[in-house]
């Protein structure tokens, strides 16, 4: 069906707005419409005012690349389909359905109220009108279909991540119960579904009412769902007269609901339409990898009051859609810790909504973020975080939890509110430059156990500077791995050296604890030691050191080209400087270290290495970006986990143990080796499979046969 060559004037094919409405009804509609828009504008103003009560955010960059990545993410729904493809697809259906319907309404408004009235231009008729109808029908189906899936999901499937129960509150706490969130969720769904369905009913009723007019009835199949409803209503006995009444009724309810929705957007979860988009556009490419530097001359550090946050972070709080992806991924939450990243965000949101939404900013006590009151975040919650970044990485709307948590910890550190053991460790690191409390002089001691000398990079130029790190230097088990790496580099003929006692703890975890002053001290001392040495590039076996040297030292003036050993060795094999002599043939699984994988996307090199040495890799369910933290991050390696609860590393061992015939659980991080060898024992899987450092497997496969000397350190 087309209008080409038809006998009628194409101008006849249109929909007459307010057809047969008495003029008071039309005026009344406009009145309500303006009220809705007024409410919307005021709400937006109130929200913007709230965000602007945060401090400026120097890390927000409004450039083409940032805006583009945000728009691409939104258009493709890439972040939404991850780990929840059906919900993501349903949301996409709703998003595009709603978007097209909204645009359609705007197109009509534009013609009716503007172009026709001001310039006498009409375009909403003829072919355009027909295609428009069809598009709106498809959009409506898409919207309603997506919404119905969401209802089924909330009502029947009930995934655990949509449970709003909080791990950080007792059930009798005033902000434990989140029934108002659930009411809002359902209300939102129902309003949208009713708007969508009533649109179709309206279209069907209009067809029955004007069935005798060919310009309406003959083109009914251009709005197929409308026509379907028309037949259905007719079958139910609706005639033209009844249709007039029904149409009037539905018209008003459809319109009233749509306007209500618009007026409510800034006041309800619907605001995520805007906040999520902005949040995605202003996302930080290195949110947890590169923590914020304290501006020169700023005395108070960390977040104490809501107004210490940046406007972007205040906006993040409102972008959260409670999707629960972060809640599900969080290792602290999974193992029963008093922390859910979602609830940190929601608590602060509730606090911001009660404190920052009025015309005046209240006194500071009402803005305090720390505490156990409604909307506050307790210190136990903050200290439970392992800064593993699983939350930030999976958040579909780019909420950046880790910097908020670390900034709040900075304030705790200033106040000395921390575990006494952590306090001791920090003092030890300050005093001796390492967390083991060993003498600085012994840092290079492990190298004495090698049959060749390891160059002192402070004294002679080297090609590769090896930044060893604390665990690889001092932990006896990891010293063996360090020696293996030294032998490997030696065999490949690499000219390398270490800084010996010129090296200190790299500071990655200290920064994540929130002891920024100590971090600055360590970073500056390492940077100056590195800058006074002569080398071309840096390599490390420690993903934690790797991350901070790569991403954070540049902020302190230290620009170094650094690689983790996995990609470094892979290149040596590819270049033929090392040859694999033996295929190990083990059935293995690989644990992605947070700081190598999620933080720095080093997923491929270790897998390629495993393939090269003939291992059969069986992935765990939680792998790569979804890798499950061993529990050591964020300084938690220095604080024992509470007794009687499962540790993250133990949880991980159970996951690995479910792999049929697993022989080796492969790690590539010194802290992982420590954490998992321990967890293997405590979970009783010892004897079933082993935990091995990839380096040791490489040495075996490369058959590097240097006499192994004992560590004499």
């Amino acid at each position: 069906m087309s209008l080409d060559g038809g006998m009628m004037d194409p101008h006849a094919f249109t929909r007459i707005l307010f057809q047969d409405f008495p003029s008071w009804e039309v005026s009344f509609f406009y009145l309500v419409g303006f009220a809705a828009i007024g409410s919307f504008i005021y709400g937006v103003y109130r929200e913007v005012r709230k965000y602007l009560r945060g401090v400026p955010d120097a890390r927000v960059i409004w450039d083409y690349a940032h805006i583009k990545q945000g728009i691409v993410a939104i258009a493709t729904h890439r972040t939404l389909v991850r780990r929840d493809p059906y919900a993501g697809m349903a949301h996409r259906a709703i998003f595009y359905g709603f978007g097209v319907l909204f645009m359609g309404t705007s197109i009509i408004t534009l013609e009716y109220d503007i172009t026709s009235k001001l310039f006498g231009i009409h375009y909403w008729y003829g072919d355009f009108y027909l295609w428009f109808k069809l598009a709106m029908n498809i959009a409506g189906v898409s919207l309603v279909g997506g919404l119905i899936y969401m209802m089924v999901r909330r009502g029947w499937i009930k995934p655990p991540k949509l449970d709003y129960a909080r791990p950080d509150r007792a059930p009798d706490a005033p902000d434990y119960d989140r029934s108002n969130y659930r009411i809002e969720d359902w209300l939102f769904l129902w309003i949208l579904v009713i708007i969508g369905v009533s649109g179709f009913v309206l279209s069907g009723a209009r067809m029955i009412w004007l069935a005798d007019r060919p310009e309406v009835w003959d083109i009914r199949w251009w709005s197929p769902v409308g026509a379907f409803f028309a037949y259905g209503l007719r079958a139910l006995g609706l005639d033209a007269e009844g249709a007039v009444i029904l149409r009037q009724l539905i018209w008003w309810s459809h319109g009233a609901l749509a306007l209500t929705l618009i007026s409510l957007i800034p006041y309800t979860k619907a605001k995520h339409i805007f906040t999520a988009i902005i949040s995605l556009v202003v996302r930080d490419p290195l949110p947890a990898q590169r923590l914020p530097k304290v501006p020169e001359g700023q005395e108070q550090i960390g977040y104490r009051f809501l107004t210490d946050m940046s406007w972007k972070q205040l906006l993040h709080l409102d972008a959260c859609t409670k999707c629960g992806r972060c809640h599900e991924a969080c290792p602290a939450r999974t193992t029963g810790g008093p922390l859910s990243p979602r609830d940190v965000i929601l608590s602060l949101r509730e606090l911001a909504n009660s404190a920052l939404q009025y015309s005046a900013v209240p006194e500071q006590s009402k803005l305090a973020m720390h505490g156990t009151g409604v909307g506050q975040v307790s210190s136990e919650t903050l200290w439970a975080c392992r800064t593993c970044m699983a939350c930030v990485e999976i958040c579909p709307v780019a909420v950046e939890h880790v910097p908020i948590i670390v900034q709040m910890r900075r304030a705790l550190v200033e106040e000395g509110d921390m575990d006494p053991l952590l306090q001791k460790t920090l003092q030890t690191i300050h005093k001796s430059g390492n967390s083991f409390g060993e003498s600085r002089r012994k840092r290079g001691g492990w190298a004495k156990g090698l049959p060749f000398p390891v160059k002192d990079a402070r004294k002679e130029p080297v090609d590769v500077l090896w930044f060893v790190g604390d665990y690889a230097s001092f932990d006896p088990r990891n010293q063996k791995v360090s020696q293996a790496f030294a032998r490997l580099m030696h065999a490949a003929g690499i000219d390398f050296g270490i800084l010996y006692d010129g090296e200190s703890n790299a500071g990655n975890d200290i920064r994540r604890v929130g002891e920024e002053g100590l971090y600055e001290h360590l970073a500056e001392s390492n940077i100056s030691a590195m800058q006074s040495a002569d080398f071309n590039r840096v390599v490390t076996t420690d993903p934690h050191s790797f991350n901070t040297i790569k991403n954070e030292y540049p902020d302190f003036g230290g620009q170094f080209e650094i690689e983790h050993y996995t990609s470094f060795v892979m290149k040596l094999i590819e270049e033929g400087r090392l040859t694999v002599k033996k295929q190990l043939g083990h059935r293995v699984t690989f644990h992605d270290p947070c700081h190598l994988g999620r933080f720095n996307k080093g997923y491929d090199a270790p897998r390629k290495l495993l393939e090269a040495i003939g291992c059969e890799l069986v992935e765990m369910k939680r792998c790569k970006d979804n890798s499950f933290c061993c529990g050591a991050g964020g300084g938690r390696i220095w604080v024992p986990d509470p007794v009687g609860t499962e540790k993250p590393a133990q949880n991980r061992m159970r996951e690995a143990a479910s792999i049929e015939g697993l022989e080796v659980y492969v790690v590539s991080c010194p802290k992982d080796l420590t954490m998992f060898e321990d967890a293997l024992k405590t979970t009783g899987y010892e004897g079933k499979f082993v935990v091995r450092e990839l380096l040791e497997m490489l040495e075996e496969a490369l058959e590097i046969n240097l006499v192994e000397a004992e560590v004499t350190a």
Partner: protein
Amino acid sequence: MKILIAIKQAIALDEDFEIRADGRDIEEDFFLPDLNEWDEYSLEEAMLIKERHADTPVEVVCVTIAPDSADEALRKCLAKGADRAIRVWDESMEGSDPVAIARALAAVAKKEAPDLFFAGVQSSDHAHGATGIAVAGFLGWAHSAVVARLDYTPGAKEVVLKRELEGGLSQELRLPCPAVLTIQLGINKPRYASLRGMKLAAAKPIETLAPGDIGLATNDCGESGSLARVRRMYVPEKQRAQILAGDVAAQAKALAAIIREATGS
């Protein structure tokens, strides 16, 4: 109301260390200096009194008798919230024993006139355990050692405290102010001094005084003002243990031989 706290920059040793050439101390290169552990507790106790009674102004003043290398310890105290820091030193004070140190501390106390004077029970390096009580001796104030709990309201005329005695006994005392108390570990939980806090404290002034400024004569200070003098510092030879066999008479005979050998008689 004022609390004066004696502070010491105590020394921990690196694992391998060397004795100084004159044989009377350790080579400085091997020093790992830090605020004496006991002093962390006495400072914290003072800070708690200050914070618990926000309505009465309490001034917390730290004092050390040491060269400027001890400034770091004072800065740590300032970072933790002490209001002022005083350091008394000149070369004549080199070689002071705990009594000479106490004399200088007492002279500062006379000048500052605090309501309470705190010192640690002992220092973690030399462990004389004498300084605090010697200060009380010079001042003639009431005093108590090894204080494990303290009740004091700023402005009160007396202080109530609990001491730990040997054998699991406790003693409760009431002392008139001003009083000298030596504070035991575990009386509280010392707060953490963040590194930024310490850096910021670097901007706070440390009042430096010479012995003359507090009315001390040269022979009050250093070795001339001291009763004890370090003769030598050394790592004791590894001791051997030996079980003497035989009957009592045989054992006595063997023991006598050992004693004779050791005393060279």
